[in-house]
């Protein structure tokens, strides 16, 4: 590796660094999560900001993504090609992942070059070039991706479903935004957004590496010494509308051999007290190859390659909530039979909960698989980051097993009926109109919304 000398130098300097970023691991809100992995030949650094597409202004949906991606288009001393060349030649990669309420700027690198790669990551975040031409290039790339999405039935389903359940909120569009929103973004918008959001008060470092915690702490404090102080304004509160009745959203995609089907409503918050109870129920309902949905719709009927139902399928429980979705993609000719049957299965679940046998099965499956959450250093880090960001209570294996083993048929049914509601759901179908039309004819007392442009509000 060419950068080993630089790496050693940085390590030597780190103990004398002035901390512009003050790392805390305990207390009210830690901003440094670390997992040492003595076998890892690659290190992972995630610089997380508590911001995201929720703060995109109306009419400029996609701003957070365009802005943070622009960070990686070169620095004050390196153009885009030089920046990526420097990062990638040393066996590293950088990326940006935008969510609604968190942005992750990530670095993945061969272990020996962590110090040098960390330095380049800091250069990108703290000294980006943000030239107009680079920002326009990011916009072009995002527009290409959004236009491509219009040809993907699965992505269309998720976009329409999102708006159906989060209508009128800051969550109504995916983090990618919309075509018109991205077109409206100016380079000044990007620069102003980053100035407001890249603050040490919202940053969290999550690192998994074959280094000591002290070494990594030193590297971060040295590299990010110049991160601006302050905390961005709070994320907007989300009050998703309660769905009333059944609304069918249908988008015509002539020639589709399968239909993408999503049925559901808003889900739960990450810190909900009976979350484990509800998830235990969902295991037997739709999260497993032995679940009711899978067995009935795929194994017995053969209508679809897959049929699932749960909180994690669309938007996992977060601080602001999440989504619940039943998802299947039947052969087009079986759409007419599948959608009503999926609704029936959901109704039966909400009315009756699980059988004793199913509950026993769910408990075993959930408690036995729980240790996988901690099986690798990266898995442990992700679990801790999720808990920190979303407010989900940490559960040790023994705590988790105690909670799940304590679930009864009665407590489960009560929890299900508080959250799940088959009478008030969004039913989204993307497929050939000759097949989706037959479903609409079969369903009673539904409102039908025909979606022609999923990039706009409907």
């Amino acid at each position: 590796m060419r950068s080993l000398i630089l790496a050693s130098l940085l390590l030597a300097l780190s103990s004398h660094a002035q901390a512009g970023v003050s790392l805390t691991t305990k207390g009210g809100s830690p901003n440094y999560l670390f997992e040492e992995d003595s076998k890892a030949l690659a290190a992972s650094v995630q610089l997380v900001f508590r911001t995201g597409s929720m703060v995109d202004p109306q009419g400029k949906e996609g701003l957070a993504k365009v802005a943070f991606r622009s960070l990686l288009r070169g620095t004050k001393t390196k153009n885009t090609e030089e920046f990526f060349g420097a990062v990638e030649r040393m066996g590293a990669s950088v990326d940006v992942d935008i969510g609604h309420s968190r942005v992750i700027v990530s670095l993945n690198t061969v272990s020996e070059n962590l110090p040098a790669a960390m330095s380049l990551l800091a250069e990108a975040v703290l000294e980006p070039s943000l030239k107009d031409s680079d920002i326009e290039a990011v916009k072009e790339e995002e527009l290409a991706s959004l236009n491509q999405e219009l040809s993907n039935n699965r992505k269309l389903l998720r976009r329409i479903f999102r708006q159906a359940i989060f209508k009128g909120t800051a969550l109504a569009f995916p983090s990618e935004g919309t075509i018109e929103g991205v077109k409206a973004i100016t380079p000044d918008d990007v620069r102003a957004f980053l100035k407001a959001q890249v603050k040490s008060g919202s940053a969290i470092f999550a690192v998994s590496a074959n280094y000591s915690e002290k070494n990594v702490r030193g590297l971060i404090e040295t590299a990010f010494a110049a991160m601006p102080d302050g905390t961005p304004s709070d994320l907007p509160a989300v009050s998703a509308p309660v769905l009333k009745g059944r609304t069918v959203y249908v988008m015509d995609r002539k020639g589709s051999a399968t239909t993408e089907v999503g049925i559901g409503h808003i889900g739960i918050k990450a810190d909900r007290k009976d979350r484990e109870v509800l998830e235990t129920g969902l295991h037997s309902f739709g999260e497993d190859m032995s679940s009711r949905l899978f067995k009935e719709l795929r194994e017995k009927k053969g209508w679809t390659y897959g049929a699932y139902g749960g909180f994690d399928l669309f938007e996992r429980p977060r601080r602001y909530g999440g989504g619940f979705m039943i998802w299947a993609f039947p052969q087009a000719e079986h759409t007419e039979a599948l959608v009503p049957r999926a609704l029936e299965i959901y109704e039966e679940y909400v009315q009756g909960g699980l059988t004793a046998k199913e509950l026993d099965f769910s408990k075993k499956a959930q408690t036995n698989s729980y240790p996988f959450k901690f099986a690798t250093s990266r898995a442990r880090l992700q679990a801790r980051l999720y808990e920190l960001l979303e407010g989900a209570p940490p559960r040790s294996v023994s705590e988790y097993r105690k909670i799940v083993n304590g679930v009864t048929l009665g407590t489960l049914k009560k929890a299900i009926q508080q959250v799940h509601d088959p009478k008030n759901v969004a039913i989204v179908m993307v497929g050939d109109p000759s097949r989706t039309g037959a479903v609409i004819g079969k369903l009673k007392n539904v409102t039908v919304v025909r979606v022609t442009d999923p990039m706009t509000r409907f």
Partner: protein
Amino acid sequence: MLMRFLALTFLLTLPQPSATAAAPKGGAEKITETRLPNGLMVHEYRLKNGLQLLFVPDHTAPVFTYQVWFKVGSASEKLDPRLKKTGLAHFFEHMMFRGTKKVGEGQFDAKLSAAGSVGLNATTWLDRTNYFESLPKEKLELAFELESDRMANLVINEKGFKNELGAVIGELKMRKDKPSSVAYENVWDLAFDKHPYKYSVIGTEEELHSFTVDDAMYFYNTHYAPNNAALILIGDFEIPRALALAEKYYGKYKSKELPNPEVPQEPVQTEMRKRELTHPLANSNFLYWGYKIPDGKSADMAPLEVIGAILSTGDGSILERELVQTGNASSIGAGPNRGRYPGLFFVTIQMAPGKDDKLAYKSLEKALSRFRNGDVTEPEIERARNQYLLGSYNELLNASTVGTNLGESLVTTDNYLREFQMIEQLKKVTAADIKRVANAYLVEKNSSLIRLTPATASAKGDSK
């Protein structure tokens, strides 16, 4: 003899069976042991019936990954004189979850799921079929019991067979809705005339409907044998116990005489092939090239991997910079498909809607010309090599991907360390190697191109 581990270079030496073989004990013969780049040891054994065992103990978490690899894929069934179709190897993979004489319909999934399985699944490809799951350490015997049972005692009934057919046709149609899948399968079909790589792994709807329970049982009885399989176990277990369980559960099965069909020789391609397609759901143009290359054992794979990475791995790659970062393409890819038989080097470009695909031809040809002229720089090679290395190191973090690398290498090259040895070979690739392989393989007369465009004229990215 233990393989020596040279800590600073990650040098991996091939196992040497003659030097390391131990006397058979309890039915399992020790072949060798080798250290992986992350320090974990692969212990290789073989049962008397031919079942190959690759054990990689790792006690960092109380879990393990269990994988069974069968050296039979879609290419094998096409070569089988009784079948001569494709799709059954994959369809049959689905049937392997349906039940056995001891484990009733649907109970295989249920038992493993209740035991806490994660990632329970299976895949079929040209040269192999693999089955895998991860479980908590205390469920080791259950994994042996269930996996060994379905290797020999599968029950297939008409009803289950017909229901599963629906799911498989659903999978086929799902792929049909994806323009990228359609383009990809067409490249294989266009590039090959005689070799079974020509045919789609999933088969056609017509072929799927023609299969019978008898066909499935014939396939099972012919190809599913201990001497045609390898068990890969990675995680928290002790080798003596794993060996004892292997002997207990697999040792009773007899090896079988495996078919040894003559593989048709693919004629040498002498000119470029091109096929135009339309797709009702596409809204941009797809350009998929396949260049004929040697089999996965070839030493030319390392330079081909470097070329693939120069073209498409990372934000600094040529196609990413010239096509994706300019908004002209929405996705790109390049690299060799390493197979048991000579295969293809793929270059795939999905244009952005409304963009002229001439840009893609120009960008690719400019890059390939440079490679053929030997005009590739050391920083380009270094970037590509280290990107590949990073990918390999990431794969070593996860038991499932370590298992997949061992298994895939084994079924395509008979050398389960092939992927790890690639790391060492990549370090030696030079500009001269790139020039040589680019001139040998990445030339127009050796290529097959699929150009897939939207069915609706308004969405096409033509400038004609």
